């Protein structure tokens, strides 16, 4: 018994010491509960786990944009944003727990959710219609969820994976001199073995059928640190192009392995989730020449960053370091925050300047239209193309470009492409129809929506 007591005492002291050290080290005390006139927004983000290096800049971008709106404009038309993060560690069950915990917080519940994980998006897609909370899955999620008649609550704004794959294929075709030149070529997809990585396969198979190139998908198991066999196979099969659909450490590992087997990096094309600084920096010189699709924006600081500096960073209130605010994923977080805020603003025109429910915000997203003038006004000129969301098109825009890493920074190397709706639309319709049938859903008639 004495031994046990001693052990107990020790463990308690130890635990207390550790907790105290942790608190003192970085805890920032800022008690913050959403007030009765605040618009609550839940942040399902990740700053821990295997994908933290990519999750952190994105989370910083979102948090900073909301903070900017509060500091600069005093909220959205006077309605302050109350934002709370919950760390999902990119795990689906933790993400769902976070969602359930935060969905009803604040006066009206969360305005929308952006889980930054295709797996969590899949899980929440089942819950959204019941809870009436829209999902903004900007550049990820189910590709067919662009069809708003079936997926009323999903908004894969700015592009789906099928759009991404199509834009990359158009760029490759252009380099080769037309789609007809792709006949007989070998194209390999190295993908993260999860719903995320599998999404583009359907489109690429379709394109392969259309143009007669040989398409081989090659899975890489989570977290993607062991890819030697994959790249040895690539070396032996000598494909003409390699497409990369990775996330987190898998991206940099792929690029390193490509360098190690001598596969030319300028024949490698990543999706927009494989085209940020944490992906190329660890590979150092090996990443030079590597290409990636852009989700509209690239790296760099724009007009909005000046506001961030003035209202947040000069006062020491930013979540990142100011130098890092021009990074690709940080900028993506900013845009995600901005689209959310603009949707709420749009919804306020119909429902009034007060905290809105998810259902009301859903209407705002569906009727969101951002013109070039508005983009400039918001300080996002150069980061975004004009876009318009509608019932039948939850994507808003299908434009994208290709960027290349020159060893120091990303440079844009292509014109704007637009994914080909002649190819994608029938696939979206078929997949959405299958989903609706499996789930026995009633389909909205978009032609009757105003």
């Amino acid at each position: 018994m004495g031994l046990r007591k001693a052990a107990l005492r020790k463990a308690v002291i130890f635990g207390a010491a550790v907790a105290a050290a942790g608190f003192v080290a970085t805890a920032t005390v800022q008690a913050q509960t959403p007030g009765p006139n605040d618009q609550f927004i839940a942040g399902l983000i990740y700053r821990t786990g295997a994908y933290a290096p990519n999750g952190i800049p994105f989370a910083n971008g979102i948090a900073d944009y909301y903070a900017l709106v509060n500091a600069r404009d005093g909220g959205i038309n006077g309605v302050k944003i109350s934002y709370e993060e919950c760390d999902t560690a990119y795990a689906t069950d933790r993400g769902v727990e976070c969602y359930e915990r935060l969905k009803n917080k604040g006066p009206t519940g969360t305005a929308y959710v952006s889980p930054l994980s295709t797996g969590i998006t899949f899980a929440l897609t089942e819950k959204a219609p019941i809870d009436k909370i829209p999902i903004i899955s900007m550049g990820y999620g189910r590709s067919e969820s662009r069809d708003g008649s079936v997926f009323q609550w999903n908004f894969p704004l700015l592009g789906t994976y099928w759009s991404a794959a199509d834009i990359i294929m158009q760029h490759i075709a252009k380099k080769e001199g037309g789609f007809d030149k792709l006949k007989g070529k070998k194209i390999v997809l190295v993908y993260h073995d999860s719903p995320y990585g599998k999404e583009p396969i359907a489109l690429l198979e379709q394109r392969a059928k259309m143009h007669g190139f040989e398409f081989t998908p090659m899975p890489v198991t989570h977290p993607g640190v062991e890819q030697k066999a994959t790249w040895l196979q690539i070396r032996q099969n000598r494909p003409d192009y390699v497409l990369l659909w990775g996330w987190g450490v898998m991206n940099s590992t792929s690029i390193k392995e490509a360098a190690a087997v001598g596969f030319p990096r300028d024949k490698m094309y990543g999706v927009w989730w494989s085209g940020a600084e944490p992906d190329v920096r660890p590979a150092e010189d090996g990443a030079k020449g590597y290409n990636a699709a852009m989700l509209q924006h690239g790296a760099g600081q724009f007009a909005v960053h000046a506001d961030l500096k003035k209202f947040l960073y000069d006062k020491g209130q930013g979540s990142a370091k100011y130098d890092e605010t021009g990074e690709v994923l940080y900028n993506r977080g900013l845009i995600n925050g901005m689209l959310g805020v603009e949707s709420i603003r749009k919804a306020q025109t119909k429902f009034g300047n007060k905290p809105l429910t998810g259902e009301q915000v859903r209407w705002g997203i569906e009727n969101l239209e951002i013109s070039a003038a508005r983009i400039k006004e918001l300080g996002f000129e150069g980061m975004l193309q004009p876009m318009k969301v509608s019932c039948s098109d939850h994507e808003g825009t299908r434009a994208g470009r290709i960027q290349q890493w020159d060893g120091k920074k990303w440079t844009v190397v292509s014109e704007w492409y637009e994914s080909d709706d002649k190819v994608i639309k029938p696939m979206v319709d078929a997949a959405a129809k299958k989903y609706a049938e499996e789930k026995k859903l009633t389909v909205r008639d978009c032609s009757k929506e105003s």
Partner: protein
Amino acid sequence: MLGAFLETLIGGLLTGVLYSLVALGFVLIFKASGVFNFAQGAMVLFAALTIARLSGEIDNKEVHLANFVVAAAILGVAVALIGWYAWREYVARGAGPDERRKMQMLAAVGALVGGIAAYSYGKGAWPIWLAIAATAAIMGLLAYAIERLVLRHLVNQEGIILFMATLGIANFLDGFGQTLWGSDIYKINLGLPKDPLFLFENVFPGGLLVDPGELVAAGIAAGLVVVLAIFFQKTRVGRALRAVADDHAAAQSVGIPLNTIWLIVWTVSGLVALAAGLIWGAKLGVQFSISLIALKALPVLILGGFTSVPGAIVGGLIIGAGEKLSEVFLAPVLVKAFDLAGGGIENWFAYMLALVFLLFRPQGLFGERIIERV
């Protein structure tokens, strides 16, 4: 075809050496204390993070002042404690409580001075050798903490309880390391060569690809294995370790202090974790995922036997080569035959290989024969 085969084989063997290195950490601890230490992966991560953050480009990332205070203090305490411990063991065996208290005071002062010195120096990036040395000290301290706070209280428990305790330690270390050092991606720069080598280009079309970085890493690993083997076979401590591994009670009765031995073993496996962390970290960048490397070492363990150092090495080579060959040559066949959505068989193939092997030799390749008495 032969070229492709050889190339895959070489790549697999080189990867296998790195698996061996992780497996070695498991074997050392299992041999001396019967603990199946699942925290080995977390230790690899912790060591790699420490090295990377002490040596890395701090100016580029946010400097966590508190982190450095803590790190410097840990370093100081570690240096002082190890000094004190060595002094007690080898100089002052008969020291009374007064001397001991004096030494404790001295250690505390040393920790303070060391901490202040380390901190003021630590504002810039440390040279890699100093970071490695400091990390080695920290791993020693960690071993001490684990022995003192956990293992000592779990003497004579069943294996599975000890195993679960190490899972708890792994959880703790993952959180602790990332709290201290952050969870971004960090670099360790060992200056490993990166450009691929192509051998025998006149024999095989395209040559045989060898990654020189891996070659160097494998060399380091092999060197470490030799050092460990000498340590085990030739030194006094090594003999004591083997004695404990053979029979705890008998070793104790001839005067070998069990706790000290455990401390040494955990320190050594901490150093093995350091080496593994260094190599994997330089290869992949340091971030959370390298703690999952531990899973790769498990089939090596059952193939080679939990208690055999040569088993860990040979097992690593077999698993490394086996999984790469299966992935490159078997997976495409399976995909064609069963219309699968891609290959990726290497994850389970290693386990299946080990499992099938075990059916014929349940104690592993070099494991000790299991003798059962009723």
